[in-house]
């Protein structure tokens, strides 16, 4: 999944580098504020471990092998901010020293595997562990997180390739999603297998799911939830049934369906975009756009409510 150089346009490179820079800066700031200091040597050892674990290939079928990516595992072990730092360093070493991924494409690769995958994986794992607060819950969270992390990473990679004009966007998203479903299952299986042993012998090392270790838990959860919601909107929405919903069905049967009239024209009517990209892709992008809009509105409302509540307390 590491993109090499020579396949992304300048615009995509600049955009992904900017987003990655902002994400890594946020991770460094959050880590600096954390009271539980973790020495650089220990983080470096985890980074070296993830690098080594990626080299341990597992035979999948005759002639094919797979390996762990480790974003969700790092998030469960260290929390999302430290995992972002560790994955950024792993990807930088791979690009700078081993040409596994390009230097120009490092921004895109870090955004895919170091930020989106970490936050998607951690949110899934964290919510599962809250619902099932036992060692088994931690393992189950890691398994689900590994799967989510792989899909989110594959989705973003295909978007960069499509936006760079290398392949048609609708086609590459479907191909990547299909192939990475199997890779995601393997990632989930391997993450679960590692966590089973770690939880058994050193449960104290599973720091990422302990909320007291996460001062910026709220911000991380919001970022992660947005990643997961974005994945669901992008991948599940195009496969939704095209049949009418209950009200539409009843209106059609009772004969007043045709009398429905719109009072105004919505910006994205029927989950479509104003330009043609193929029906599945339009629905997916409209779903992501809607998710982001809802998040922005919810954030604005929550800030307003929070201010009023604080004012009431002060009064």
């Amino acid at each position: 999944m590491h993109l090499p150089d020579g396949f992304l346009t300048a615009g995509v490179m600049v955009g992904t580098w900017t987003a990655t820079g902002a994400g890594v800066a946020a991770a460094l700031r959050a880590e600096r504020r954390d009271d539980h200091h973790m020495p650089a040597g220990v983080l470096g050892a985890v980074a070296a471990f993830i690098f080594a674990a990626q080299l341990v290939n597992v035979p999948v079928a005759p002639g094919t092998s797979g390996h762990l990516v480790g974003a969700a595992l790092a998030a469960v072990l260290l929390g999302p901010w430290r995992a972002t730092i560790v994955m950024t360093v792993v990807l930088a070493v791979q690009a700078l020293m081993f040409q596994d991924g390009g230097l120009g494409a490092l921004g895109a690769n870090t955004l895919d595997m170091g930020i989106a995958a970490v936050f998607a994986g951690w949110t899934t794992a964290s919510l599962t562990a809250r619902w099932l607060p036992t060692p088994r819950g931690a393992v189950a969270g890691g398994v689900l997180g590994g799967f989510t992390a792989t899909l989110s990473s594959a989705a973003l990679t295909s978007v960069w390739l499509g936006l760079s004009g290398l392949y048609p966007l609708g086609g590459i998203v479907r191909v990547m999603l299909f192939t990475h479903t199997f890779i995601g299952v393997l990632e989930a299986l391997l993450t679960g297998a590692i966590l089973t042993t770690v939880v058994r012998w050193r449960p104290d090392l599973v720091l990422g799911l302990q909320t007291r270790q996460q001062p910026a838990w709220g911000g991380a959860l919001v970022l992660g939830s947005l990643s997961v919601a974005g994945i669901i909107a992008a991948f599940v929405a195009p496969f939704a049934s095209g049949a009418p919903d209950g009200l539409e069905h009843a209106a059609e049967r009772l004969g007043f369906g045709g009398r429905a009239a719109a009072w105004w024209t919505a910006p994205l009517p029927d989950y479509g975009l104003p330009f043609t990209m193929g029906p599945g892709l339009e629905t997916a992008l409209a779903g992501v756009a809607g998710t982001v809009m809802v998040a922005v509105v919810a954030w604005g409302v929550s800030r307003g409510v929070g201010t009023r509540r604080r004012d009431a307390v002060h009064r």
Partner: protein
Amino acid sequence: MPYTGNRPGVVLALGIGLVMSAALSPAGLDGAAIPAWVWPLWLGVFLAALAAFRRAGYPIVEALRRIGWLVPLVLVFTVPAALVAPASQRLLIFAALASRALAAAAAAAAMAIWLGPSGMVRAVRQLGAPSRLADVFEAMLASLAGVLRQAHAMLRAREARRSSIGAWSLVAAAPVETARGFGRLVASLLLRALERAEALERARRARGFEP
């Protein structure tokens, strides 16, 4: 000889500049024409990469062998892109994409070989990377050789205890057994890596180093 001068940051910046000049030149995607100047540019970047390999003490054959490792990855992206291009342009786009990617990858490989791990750490610091990132980068490179040695030793020991060829069965044939074996081995590697790092940290503190 790896680079031992005082300006590894300049070498890294020049290397990144070379990689970018090759990677961002037009290669005929989206129906755009391929200008004539890009072919000598890619050849020039490739030759500069070979020169840097020579400067680092690598014979040309060894340099070509190292660059050759990158060809399968380049083909994974190039072949499908050529297949979806218009029929009359397929060969040209394939050649342009492959040349562009190989020139960029060769320049990056040459820069890494010439700078070496310690030169790369100094270069990253000189280019103004955040100190925490540079510290973790340095610590990772310092631990890497030890962790990889452990991983190889553990894989060798596991393989020696198996009756069949290879360290594991196939995931498709025996998923639980394969995953369990992988989990035990890689989790042990994680515990060893962390416990080694914690011991090193204790030793550093005992000698007066502050984290």
